[in-house]
């Protein structure tokens, strides 16, 4: 930590995939946070969020794991930071249900029967929002030691960071700038392309990867036509679909945290394997 910075502590929800197939997303998020003077405290005994928000009004049990994480962050009195797009989407939408009272909040509180009712008090922020709103992209850009000077980088938002806009409230869902501002902060040159907030195919890849290939292919060619040299994402499934499905894909796809760690000069510090595996 550098002089003049105040200590920021957040509760941290990594999610299942970040412990297995997407270790890089987690590892570089932790390394970069540490360098920026931010303490990410992993929640004790968190459970899988389910990776897909249960939209039906009568779905209660499927929301409980998210509520438990939210309640745990409330007890610790920290904002809750997520980094995976899917976890962020599920936990933020469930928190919104709890905040707005109604049927879900009532049934969840009846079932969990906590000493103090939970009504959406925890503030859920994505890692990118932490960089923008808590640390500041201006502070981040000053901390960068190895800028991606002149590199043409395409931000891929996908669906879950932005939608539904009225709940997620991260950015303008149709014309977002947070990832482009992040790219500028690490010294890169953001590429704006029309498919940056269109779907990669998501879970359909499991059942019918032809559909995922078609939709991911559109995203990739759109980025390529606009001159992208690499693509950034915050979502393990987007990374999988874009990497796996793109026909003649020559654009590499990275987690945004990996580029962040590289720009901050902390990517190879402390060995690659022993960070992020504390649990």
């Amino acid at each position, binding site marked *: 930590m550098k002089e003049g910075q105040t200590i920021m502590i957040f509760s941290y929800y990594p999610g299942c995939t970040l412990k297995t197939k997407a270790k890089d997303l987690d590892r570089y998020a932790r390394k970069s946070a540490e360098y920026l003077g931010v303490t990410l405290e992993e929640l004790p005994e968190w459970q899988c969020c389910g990776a897909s928000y249960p*939209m039906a009004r009568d779905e209660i049990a499927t929301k409980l794991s998210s509520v438990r994480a939210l309640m745990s962050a409330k007890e610790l009195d920290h904002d809750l930071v997520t980094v995976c797009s899917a976890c962020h989407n599920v936990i933020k939408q469930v928190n919104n249900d709890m905040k707005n009272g109604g049927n879900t909040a009532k049934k969840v509180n009846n079932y969990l029967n906590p000493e103090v009712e939970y009504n959406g008090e925890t503030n859920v922020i994505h890692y990118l929002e932490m960089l923008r709103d808590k640390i500041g992209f201006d502070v981040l850009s000053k901390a960068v030691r190895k800028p991606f000077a002149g590199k043409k980088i395409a931000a891929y938002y996908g669906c879950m960071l932005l*939608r539904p806009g009225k709940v997620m409230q991260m950015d303008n869902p149709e014309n977002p700038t947070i990832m482009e501002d992040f790219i500028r902060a690490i010294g890169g040159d953001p590429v704006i392309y029309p498919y940056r907030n269109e779907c990669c195919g998501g879970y359909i890849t499991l059942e019918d990867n032809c*559909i995922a290939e078609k939709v991911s292919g559109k995203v990739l060619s759109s980025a390529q036509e606009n001159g992208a040299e690499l693509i950034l994402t915050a979502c393990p499934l987007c990374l999988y679909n874009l990497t796996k499905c793109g026909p003649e894909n020559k654009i590499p796809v990275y987690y945004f945290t990996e580029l962040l760690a590289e720009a901050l000069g902390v990517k190879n510090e402390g060995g690659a394997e022993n960070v992020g595996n504390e649990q």
Partner: protein
Amino acid sequence: MSGTNSDLTEQVLRTSGVNVRKCMRCGKCSGTCPSYGEMEYHPHQFVYMVEKGEIDALMKSSYRCLSCMACVERCPRGVEPLKLIEAVRLMVVRQQGQNHLKADQIPGLLDEELPQQAIVSAFRKYSK
């Protein structure tokens, strides 16, 4: 009326919380749907078929939706067609023996890189 069922319609409307009468048939949901070409019935058709009570036909055609929320975000009337598709799909998989994806199919669908997120979200969408 053949092919309509008012109990099922009532259940879909209640589970989804969607007001189908708000739809003005502009077709923007289908225009923006990344899976449009894969679907037997498209998002705008879902809305008016639910309004007409043609649920049985929809129950056979709800697995091609990617849940990307584009139709939710871009509907100028806030109808949220995705929530209807989700409610219809749930109505199918909540029945005994009607899971669209079964656990013993999973090993055959895996590869080295497939993230857990894909399996978990597919189960959320296809099974109970």
